[in-house]
């Protein structure tokens, strides 16, 4: 596969954390490529480095060494405003604990990334309504605060928020981890539908359903890639 077709190129990525005198290798020499529009599941036991890898891909953290290129941008070298621009325009995050802003309503949470982009308010509102409809959040829930939404509803609002600025890559960290199986399946289906729209998804998960539907599965162990299953041609 030509490198130009890969939206994510990770090479020799290392992230160490210092814990007192001890150095913990959370990510230890990881390399992989992900083609545009594919879904990749990151699997492995807790503490194997999945979340750290997602944080590095999303420029929420800096690597100790190695390089990450996302959509042509070498994010391991981004600083300040360019890093913010990258997160704002290229990446959409979905977290296990949803992480909606507590004092904003469902629709306001979806509008927030667009507000940060400087989008006109009417456009924000129109697009937020479309996205909420897409994730099956009915009008009755639009003006509810997160505390009055169920876990599944909150996660769907979080997915709508992740899509607000039309990012090329969605990074999801255990998106079904706090949900019951029925609601989890609904979220899995929603994420797979995004993949079919041509978005690139990287999902850290223990969920077999997500892994089964992914184009590739990267298994991690102690910060390294232990196994890789690729179904990019399926």
């Amino acid at each position, binding site marked *: 596969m030509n490198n130009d077709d890969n939206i994510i190129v990770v090479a020799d990525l290392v992230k160490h954390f210092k814990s007192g005198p001890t150095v913990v290798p959370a990510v230890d020499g990881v390399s992989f490529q992900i083609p545009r529009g594919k879904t990749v599941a990151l699997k492995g036991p807790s503490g194997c480095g999945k*979340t*750290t890898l997602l*944080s590095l891909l*999303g420029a*929420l*953290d800096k690597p100790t060494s190695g390089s990450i290129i996302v959509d042509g941008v070498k994010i391991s070298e981004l600083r300040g*405003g360019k890093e*913010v*621009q990258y*997160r*704002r*325009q290229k990446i959409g*995050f979905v*977290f296990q*604990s949803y*992480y*909606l*802003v*507590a*004092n*904003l309503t469902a629709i*306001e949470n979806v*509008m*927030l*990334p667009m*507000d*940060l*982009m400087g989008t006109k308010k009417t456009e924000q509102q129109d697009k937020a309504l479309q996205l909420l409809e897409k994730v099956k959040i009915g009008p009755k829930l639009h003006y509810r605060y997160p505390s009055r939404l169920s876990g599944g509803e909150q996660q769907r609002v979080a997915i709508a*928020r992740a899509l607000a*600025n039309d990012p090329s890559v969605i990074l999801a960290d255990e998106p079904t981890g706090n949900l019951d199986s029925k609601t989890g399946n609904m979220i899995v289906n929603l994420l797979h539908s995004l993949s079919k729209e041509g978005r690139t998804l990287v999902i850290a998960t223990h969920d077999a359903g997500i892994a089964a539907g992914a184009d590739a599965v990267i298994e991690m162990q102690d910060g390294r890639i232990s196994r890789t299953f690729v179904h990019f041609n399926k």
Partner: protein
Amino acid sequence: MGIVTRSLRNVIRNPLRTALITIILTVSIGLALTMATVNGAASNQLSSIGGNIGTEIQVRPAGQFGMMGGSDSLDETAVDKLASISHVVSVQTSAQTIYTGDNLETPAPSDSSSGSTDDAPPPNFNGGQVFRTFVSSIIVMGFDPSITNPTLMGSATLEISEGRYFTLDESDADVVVFGQNLAEANDLTVGSTVDINGTTVEVIGIFSTGQRFGDNMFVMPIDTFQRLFDITGVTSVTVTADDVSNVDGVVSAIREIFDEDTADIVTAESMYERIGGSVTNAGKASQIGMFAAFGVAAVVILFSVALMVRQRVKEIGILKAIGASGWHIGLQFSIETLVISLAASIIGALITFPLANSVAKLLSGSSNTMMAGGGRAMEFFGGGITRIAGINVAVSPEIFLYALATAIVLSIIASIIPAWYIGHVKPAEVFRYE
């Protein structure tokens, strides 16, 4: 939703927390404002005291105390030179003696058992009245007609109750203004005439001092006084310097005119130091209190901001993850801090204003008590007690606005802290540990 709207909504997001922070800030800022206004009032009072009494210099015949002893009078030619001394803004002359003629009846003696100090004559009169029964001698004083509000012996202040006081063109006219008691004892009213040492003079006014001793006097224009009582010169001169810092220089110049054998010179300096010392101490105490209160307010603001930011560190991480810049989040938190601090400052100011006024008046009250104990020295300064007590130490709006501005600046400085802290928050660490 704009950043300001989000900030304002966050302010009311947790009403209890906002209310508690506002109350604590209100108390500390209110205390700081109180101290600031009291400090300003103390400064005003010091300035006022200095301006009013600190510049007066009394010149009297050497060895004279009240009407006791010493040389008779000051030479008028020498007195005339006082006005030409540099930094002298006014020279006021007066003279006094005891009336020993037969044409005026002394007012009836007061009850000796009551022993009121107001009724008591000054000690050691030369006149031949019965001292033990508190019979006052009749005192006569001559004033420069330019002194429109003369102070009589015993610090009594003259207030015309009937008729009028003499005018500038009556400096040598045969007119007299009688104290109320003395006028009643002699059946004198405005328009009456009376023989004083062989000259018929017209009663043009009756005055009241509120004191029996003061009301047993009569006053005349100084030239008339000198002519009728055959007195040359004056017995008291009040020289006023233009500034308290020039008093020493003026005293030196006066001393060149009147040597120590001729005149005693008394300045307000010692009294100013006593009064000013107490007010200065009060001012310093309030200044320390002000700094301490502002310090407490600053700590409360900083602590509140730190608490607010620490409690919402996850929210900061979320905002950063979805593309908010540190500057953007910092501005949002700064607006929140500023709104709460400003609200507390204004509420504190509104609550404090009457409190600050009361405390400032208390300061004034303590000064009065201290000064009332100043004794006879006070008479040198022309009714000093009344005048000092009259100094207004009420809180000035300027001082108050100045203090309020300080509180607002403090809030603005405190609101910068979230911006600094937020810049250092790493979302990955926040999510890892939350």
